[in-house]
């Protein structure tokens, strides 16, 4: 072997060794996401905070869509005219439409998944004890379960409010990806399941004992009910009362339709009882301060403009949210409830974008900011829910009295003289509910319009293409009412179900 060749051979061997050394690839972590989370006391707080945070980013869509569909307000922006044209029913948005897309759906199920993770691990959570560490005390486990189950029911309620007759899959969360899906439940069974969740939550909070404190801190918007299990149970019952009214209507009507039917009286009675026992959220005494939602008794999503937090999602659009002329026709502009939110931009300064002809010159500029809370449930709202329950029972006088109570105490207006009959009481309730809670992401007026089968009547002032006579007939079968009363099941959900989204009532 020549000299150079002899020198080259060891160099080759050295390089071959370098190849061998270089062949183990380093693992690069995921810098932008979490990699597992232990169920410790410290992590429990983050998990629970995450559960409360779940839908805050998307709650603005709930507001924009349900308030527009209820013909209260609309978001007029030149760059996205569908906030007017689709939400108010002037153009079509069926199941394949990407505009409303996964709004009030994906984030909510995702948040429910987080809650189920907490619930599934409550027994495994370890906390410091006198002897070192141990499981959460049984009473706190019950209290935590009750709070989380209430939160879960709350998220399902948002979904149910936007889908109603289209149904909701209630038992799908946590199923393996790719497994055969469980059926979409019809509205009646959805509300029944929600009521059952709230029953279970209320039971656990009761077992925990009213004085039992929670092992975690809750967001400031829950301050009224987060002191102990007893106060939280008031929130749970307030939600259950609302859910029971929906259950009463959905049980009393033929499945998958919007006829009134005969609301279930027992559920109505239970709803009334729930709401009246929902202190500290509920009080029969009303104050003028409640004209501003944040000053009312209630539970709220809270927001912040600090970094890595979520600011009020409506705030960024607020001044472009204009009260519709339909609503203005029955609103007194001196009403404290109206003044608390809306200001007059003047006739020449209204919106200039598509659909401007249906807007008034009043827009949402008062008591709104990046830090402004959005109600989950509040006392004024509960007054109207009580009134609806009494209306459904035929107790028109009580319903009118409840509504007049809000009108005078909160609105600062004289009591209205309303005939104690169904139509007058109903119309009075809807008008006063509108001015009291519009833009608050509660969805009650849309619920009521559906339950009271007023969707068609409401649509008469709109394009011939809208409403059940227009939009619904564009869809094969013509039996589903899309965005004029409900948001379609998202394309992602229907696609993954191969289009089989017919609700079942097992």
């Amino acid at each position: 072997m020549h000299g150079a060749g002899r020198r080259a051979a060891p160099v080759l061997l050295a390089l071959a060794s370098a190849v061998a050394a270089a062949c183990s690839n380093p693992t690069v972590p995921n810098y932008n996401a979490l990699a597992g989370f232990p169920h410790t006391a410290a992590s429990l707080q983050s998990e629970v905070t995450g559960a409360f945070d779940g839908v805050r980013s998307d709650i603005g869509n709930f507001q924009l869509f349900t308030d527009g569909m209820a013909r209260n307000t609309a978001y007029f922006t030149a760059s996205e005219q569908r906030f007017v044209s689709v939400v108010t029913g002037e153009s079509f948005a069926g199941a394949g439409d990407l505009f409303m897309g996964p709004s009030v759906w994906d984030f909510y199920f995702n948040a429910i998944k987080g809650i189920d993770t907490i619930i599934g691990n409550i027994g495994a959570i370890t906390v410091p004890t006198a002897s070192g560490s141990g499981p959460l005390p049984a009473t706190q486990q019950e209290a935590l379960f009750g709070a989380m189950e209430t939160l879960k029911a709350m998220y399902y309620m948002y979904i149910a409010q936007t889908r109603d007759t289209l149904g909701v899959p209630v038992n799908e969360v946590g199923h393996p990806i790719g497994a055969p899906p469980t059926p979409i439940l019809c509205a009646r069974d959805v509300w029944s399941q929600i009521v059952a969740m709230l029953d279970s939550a209320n039971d656990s909070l009761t077992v925990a004992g009213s004085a039992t404190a929670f092992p975690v801190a809750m967001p400031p918007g829950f301050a009224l009910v987060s002191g102990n299990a007893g106060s939280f149970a008031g929130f749970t019952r307030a939600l259950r009362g609302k859910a029971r009214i929906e259950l009463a209507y959905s049980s009393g009507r033929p499945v998958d339709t919007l006829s009134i039917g005969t609301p279930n009286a027992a559920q109505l009675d239970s709803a009334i009882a729930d709401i009246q026992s929902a202190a500290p959220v509920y009080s029969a005494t009303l104050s003028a301060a409640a004209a501003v939602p944040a000053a009312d008794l209630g539970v709220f999503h809270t927001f912040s403009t600090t970094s890595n937090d979520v600011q009020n999602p409506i705030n960024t659009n607020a001044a472009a949210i204009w009260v519709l002329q339909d609503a203005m026709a029955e609103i007194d502009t001196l009403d404290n409830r109206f003044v608390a939110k809306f200001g007059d931009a003047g006739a020449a300064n209204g919106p200039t974008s598509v659909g401007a002809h249906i807007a008034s010159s009043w827009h949402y500029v008062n008591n709104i900011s990046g830090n402004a809370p959005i109600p989950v449930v509040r006392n004024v709202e509960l007054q109207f829910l009580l009134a609806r329950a009494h209306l459904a029972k035929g107790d028109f006088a009580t319903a009118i009295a409840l509504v007049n109570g809000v009108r005078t105490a909160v609105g600062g207006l004289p009591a209205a003289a309303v005939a104690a009959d169904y139509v007058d009481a109903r119309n009075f309730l809807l008008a006063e509910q509108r001015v009291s809670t519009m833009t608050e992401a509660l969805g009650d007026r849309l619920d009521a319009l559906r339950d009271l089968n007023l969707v068609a009547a409401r649509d008469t002032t709109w394009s011939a293409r809208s409403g059940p006579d227009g939009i619904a007939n564009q869809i094969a079968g013509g039996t589903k009412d899309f965005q004029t009363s409900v948001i379609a099941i998202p394309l992602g959900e229907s696609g993954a179900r191969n289009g089989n989204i017919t609700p079942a009532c097992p």
Partner: protein
Amino acid sequence: MSTRSVIVAAVSLALAIAAGHASGQSPARRITGRIVDSADQQPLPAAQVIVTGTTIGAATSDSGAFALRVPAGTQSLSVRRIGYRAATVRLGDAQTDVTVMLHRDILQLEQQVITGVGTSISSRNAATQDPVIVSQTINAVATPTIENALEGKVPGALISDNSGAPGGGLQVQVRGTTSIYATAAGQPLYVIDGVIMSNAAIPSGLNSISNAANNTSGNGPSPQDQETNRIADINPADIESMQFLEGSAASAIYGDKGAAGVILITTKHGSSGKPQYNLTQRVGAFSLSNTLPVRRFTLAEAQADNINRGGPLTAAQVAENYNACNGFCDFQHQLYGSGAGSWETDISVSGSTSSTQYFVSGLSKYDNGAEINTGYQKQSLRTNVVQHITSTLTAAANLAYSASLARRGVNGNDNLGIAGYDNISYTPSYFNMNKRNPDGSFVRNPYGVANAFDDARRILTPETVNRITAGGNLDFKPITNRVQSLQFILQAGADFANQKDQFYAPADLQVERSPLSAFPGTSTYQSASNQLANYSISIIHAFTGVRGIQATTSVGITHDQNALFLPDIVSQNLVAGLANQQFGVVQTSYYTQQNVVNQGVYGQEQLLLFNERLAVTAGINAEASSNDGGVNRYYPFPKASVSYRFLAPARGIDEIKLRGAYGVSGTVPNYGVKFNADSLRGYLGTLGIRYGLVAGDPNIKPETNTDYETGLDATLFKGKVTVGATVYQKRITDLLLQAQALPSTGFNQQWINGGEITNQGIELQIAATPITAGRFTWLTGENFARNQAVVNNLPVPAFQPGFTAFGYSPFGGYRIQAGASPSAFWGQTIVKGVPTITAMGDANPAFTIGFSNDFSYGPLHLHTFLDMRRGFKVSDLTEQYFDGAHNYNDTAGTNRRTAAEAAGLTPYLYNGDYLKLRELTLRYDLPFGLLDRVGRGVFRNASISLSGRNLVTWTRYPGLDPDVSNFSSQLVGRGQDVTPYPPTRSYFLSLDLGL
């Protein structure tokens, strides 16, 4: 491939080399000679002279001289030099001196095509279609960035502008759509002097001001930020040549980074002999090349229109404004008619000493933007040094630094009404918007939310980039003899870029105070760092011990790492007048970090047989990436190719080469897709867990691109005509996809591998010198490319890919569906009353043609280049903006389109066919005698030229320019025209001096 097998192969190779080396000794004699230009007998330095069939060679000196020791007996010498056709001369048994004349390679018949790390092959033998673009082609006309100079010139590479904004922003797509979601496939891989360099496109954070992405949770960086690819940092004048590896048979050497093609850039290196200075000075301007037909009003119409718009002005005010503009306020020319000039200075020196070659260059330039208060300035410096340390050891190093400042204003999509053309779309032309109040402020625009002139002058959008790239190699060649050579090459490089965007929109702007802006005043600060490092170690053995056979064996390892750090601070609700982020009431921070490590091991065998008529290459590259699910799994990327040359097969045909190739390359998954996207978010001081909506796939793997290509190349009529034809099929499998998960499970998407896309195409090239008569020559070249893509199958339901979802009606949108093109535009029609979507065209052209013609008459040269694209669609959202505000002059058209939109149709999807005069240059070379008299021997050459780029566009597209992409570079999703920075044309007067 296991590590063990690599070691065994290496040891075997070592033993073979040792044996070969022992038998390779023989008596030798000394040959000296000169290489000269056949036209003027001038000596040619830097020519490579090799004893044919061996690895023995030398380079010529500044005087064209060389000296070699050649084996005894009859031999021949092969001589090659860039720019000249190769020549082979026989040496007599006793001959010791030779002069070789080389003919200029006007049609670029002879080029060395890179086939691996340290290996290359003559283009005569290349088995793949790898177009090479040389410096003269790149620098024929002043160019904003390197990609501009390539538009239309490379068959198979679709190079398109995103907008007319200064500072670049183009997309290069090689042989069709390569992926749907794998972002690494969005651009080809760039390799400069053997070292991988980043072409990252980093969003600037403009979204914080434009609200283009319309995030309810805040506005951080977005793909709608008018991104610029960082290859814009390279100075085109530094480039010697660019080679496009289009098929996987060529790009397989880059494994899971090669599926979108590879562009190999060779920068200029030192010339032989004494220092040579080159100076280029250019002055010129960029100007608006097209405008939209904005509506004109009579005074009576203006009064009525003002009422229709809510009557924000009184009748007297309307008349006053109307008269101030003589009836038409020409916003387009006022806003985009910047009269600022541009200039560019390039200077370089290159030369060599006995052991050192050097090249040093500097660039300083400023490109004005058409829009007021926009522009692009850049300075760069490059040093390339080659040091011959010993006769067997050579070191090369290059170092480049560039600094740029781009100001692009606010254009493209927005959700406020702030972009220039968005503003013009809703502001009637009778309103004198470009007017100041007595206090110097601009008038309030009563017809919308913003005043474009105030925004253009007071919104600051500076983007500074500082970048250092360094590379080098050590080339150790311990064995060189008659039968073999052995070479070790260590290549390494690093690329550090910092992009700083510091944008500011004052709180008192009308748009910041509008109802749509909750927090008046926005100030952003983003400082992105992109760091890339890579190295390779290669062993190359060349064997020429058997007559007529050349075998080149190479093995090696590669390693590269790329990290991105992207912090962004957005401060809003600023105290008036203060831009400091600290003084914003609302402050939001965003942070993204990515890191990917790739490693590979490869082996390749390249054979030249039958006196270089038959070329056979085979190889395999195995690569692993930290982005893969299994980080230690090496995925194989094999390749094989063959070509055969038929010499003078028929009258008039000098040579025909048939070729065929097969290869596999890949694309690594995106960073992080193997993980669930869980995160944390604040909730009034407490961090809460947010479970991700997208499930990761722990088994994710690279996309695989399997290519077959075949073709022929022919030289005709004694080298006066060349033709080339290639057909290919490119099949991409294991696509990175987001499968629809059932959202009611808590996940709405899951990353998976699956599905298949096929691209099939044909590429034709012809070059000729039809006339060479006396002092007149005409050189012409044409290229044609056609690519058809189809999604063969999808394991998921049809879907609209992200960042492109403007819906189907009225604009048209993208949809990935089996049986259709992945880049198809889908629109909506109404069939029996039911909205129905259907494919209505494609964003990628059916075919492209490039026409190049160069005429010379003595010292006078005329260069033209035309770029034609046919059969593609563009979605014109801009037109819909104007229609919505009834602000187009064609009111009948507006009514027609508006009615179509209301009916659920797709009226804003247009044919984008165009023919562009991309380049036009008239150059005059000053006579040498004149130079000698004026410069007293100082000047080697001098020329003056007048050039223009994008001077004329012939198209029926009604928008500003069919060459447009709102979302910048996209795998799919180009061709969406959303109030872009308008297109420009440029003119430059240039002086080139050689000293």
